[in-house]
């Protein structure tokens, strides 16, 4: 028999333990008819069973509240309301009276009707709620029959629970001192059991068909929640291999966890902000997970590109609002549409250009297509009351563009005010520094805005006149080129001269070789893909700002890329 099986990874981590096959005692439903005289008694049983079920669920909610907090506990509030559903009770009583059947059977029939209704819905989330109902019905019927509801809280130490499915109350009873993980035959990533497992940080696999017939209680098992694989009765070599993997995983997780809540402060007590770049509201979770203290760049063009028509104000508002709310008041920098160059739209005709990167793109399109621009600005403004939102304009080369964009922004504010829509009156406005035109005269541009963000990818390309997509000259494209570094330094100095803050949201911010240099230059904030945040934070924690500064001054006197790279 094959001893390696693969399911859906539901919660990361590796466990090595012993199988505990969890197969509940099947409840036998008594389907025999009753006499009219028994009706009253059956209704009484139904109601007292309901009362007991609610009491048990209240207790479970309390224990979950202590273990996992209010959000997970609320799941049981929902269950309690389901048990307490007036229609469910009335319909069940009706069945007892009309069909002369026992409470347990009548309840099973009623619940099945609702399960079927849910099973026919399109929505996966609601379909999976049928599991909640079955869970409740099992508990309720056990209570009607006076049976002990099976308990998962006292399994032998090192158990890996294998089950057809685990209901939320099953998962709630798992004792983490004894249970090392679980595998279920059915379910998907959004099943409550999977969600719970992730919050409990309990390795888990779901949807592994056939697992119940492939193993028995007492088998040794390796569970790899990262890949979704289980190995039944593994060899000694496999155990050693996975023990190593498990240790690495735990160590990595702990290291990252320690960093998550830590601020990026140098040894001489200078604080830097670490932010994440995102392309959609979905990315926020990972940003928070990795300890980002804000969104330094929200690329809105994906909203425009992932659709076959222009996104409406409401579409955009919802996306921006979601991000702002999820970040709970931490800064969220929304960059207005950066289309053109290498990014195209199906619903807007962009002319074929000889030099698209030097052509009609980004703020240039926005200032030409004012209606599209205004739609976006209004959506951003409307979302601004749900958190701390900032607006950023891309590809600026002149003060005129900033002023024009700000005039349009003021028009949008006025139009919203006229229809009594709230927004943040003092919303901060900034620009990307990605053209030499801005870097050279950063101090002049800084007078016009509240913040800067350096886009190193384009700044490098424009400073060096190197097409970053052209392979023949790819060796010339290097942000460590002293000319690029000088441009970055000019931008930072220009910002600080006028007292505004400056961040960097290009690849360079996530380049570990560059962080010392950037700290030395006094860059205020680093913004990067979420997964890079812990690494860069770790670097900054080890630096002394003063030393970085001295080192940076020496570096900027060097003449060639090679000399710079050798002295980082």
């Amino acid at each position, binding site marked *: 028999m094959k001893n390696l099986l693969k399911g859906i990874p539901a919660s990361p981590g590796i466990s090595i333990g012993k199988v505990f096959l969890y197969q509940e005692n099947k409840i036998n439903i008594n389907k025999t008819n009753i006499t009219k005289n028994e009706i009253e008694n059956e209704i009484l049983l139904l109601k007292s069973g309901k009362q007991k079920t609610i009491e048990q669920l209240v207790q479970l909610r309390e224990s979950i509240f202590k273990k996992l907090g209010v959000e997970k506990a609320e799941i049981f*509030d*929902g269950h309690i309301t389901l048990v307490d559903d007036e*229609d469910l009770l009335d319909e069940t009583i009706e069945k007892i009276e009309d069909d002369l059947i026992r409470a347990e059977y009548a309840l099973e029939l009623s619940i099945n009707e609702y399960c079927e209704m849910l099973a026919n819905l399109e929505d996966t989330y*609601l379909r999976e709620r049928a599991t909640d109902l079955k869970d409740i019905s099992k508990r309720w019927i056990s209570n009607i029959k006076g049976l002990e509801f099976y308990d998962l809280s006292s399994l032998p130490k090192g158990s890996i629970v294998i089950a057809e499915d685990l209901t939320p109350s099953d998962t709630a009873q798992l004792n983490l001192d004894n249970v090392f993980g679980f595998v279920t035959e059915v379910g998907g990533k959004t099943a409550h059991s999977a969600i719970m497992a992730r919050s409990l940080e309990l390795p888990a696999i779901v949807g592994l068909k056939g697992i119940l017939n492939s193993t028995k209680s007492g088998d040794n098992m390796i569970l790899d929640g990262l890949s979704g694989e289980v190995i039944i009765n593994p060899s000694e070599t496999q155990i050693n291999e996975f023990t190593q993997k498990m240790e690495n995983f735990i160590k990595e997780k702990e290291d990252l966890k320690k960093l998550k809540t830590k601020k990026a402060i140098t040894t001489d007590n200078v604080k830097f902000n670490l932010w994440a770049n995102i392309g959609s509201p979905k990315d926020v979770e990972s940003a928070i997970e990795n300890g980002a203290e804000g969104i330094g760049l929200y690329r809105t063009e994906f909203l425009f590109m992932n659709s076959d028509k222009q996104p409406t104000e409401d579409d955009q508002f919802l996306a921006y609002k979601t991000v702002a709310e999820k970040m709970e008041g931490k800064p969220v920098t929304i960059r207005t549409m950066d289309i053109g160059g290498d990014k195209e739209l199906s619903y807007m005709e962009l002319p074929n250009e000889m030099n698209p990167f030097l052509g009609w793109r980004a703020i240039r399109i926005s200032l030409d297509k004012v209606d599209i621009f205004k739609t976006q600005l209004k959506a951003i403004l409307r979302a601004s009351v749900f958190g701390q939102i900032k607006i950023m304009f891309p590809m600026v080369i002149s003060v005129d563009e900033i002023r024009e964009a700000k005039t349009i922004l003021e028009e949008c504010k006025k139009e919203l005010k006229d229809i009594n829509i709230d927004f943040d009156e003092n919303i901060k406005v900034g620009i990307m520094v990605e053209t030499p035109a801005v870097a050279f005269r950063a101090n002049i541009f800084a007078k016009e805005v509240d913040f800067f963000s350096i886009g190193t990818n384009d700044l490098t390309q424009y400073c060096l006149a190197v097409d970053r997509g052209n392979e023949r000259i790819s060796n010339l494209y290097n942000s460590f080129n002293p000319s690029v570094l000088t441009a970055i330094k000019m931008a930072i100095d220009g910002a600080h001269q006028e007292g505004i803050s400056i961040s960097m949201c290009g690849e360079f911010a996530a380049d570990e070789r560059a962080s010392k240099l950037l700290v030395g230059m006094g860059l205020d904030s680093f913004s990067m893909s979420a997964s890079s945040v812990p690494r860069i934070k770790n670097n900054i924690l080890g630096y002394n700002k003063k030393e970085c500064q001295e080192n940076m001054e020496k570096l900027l006197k060097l003449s060639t890329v090679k000399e710079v790279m050798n002295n980082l």
Partner: protein
Amino acid sequence: MEKTITITNETGIHTRPGNKFVTLAKSFESKILVKNEETKKEVKGTSLLKLLSLGIKKNTKITLTTTGNDEAKAMNELSELLLNLKD
């Protein structure tokens, strides 16, 4: 009173938001009805099971009906709750 509302939260009316709605709906004297405008199915707003069975997702249009002494207050608070649903 009658009002049509578009549900905007990501997951629609599932257990948690549904529970909030039902709990609030039960606090009024008025009769509360909820109708899914796509399927035209209408149910009592005080039964979570019935509400879930409507299969209300993001962007589903629903019509809320309140009838009774406190119908205006019920309409006000219930539609407020629906419009501010999170997750």
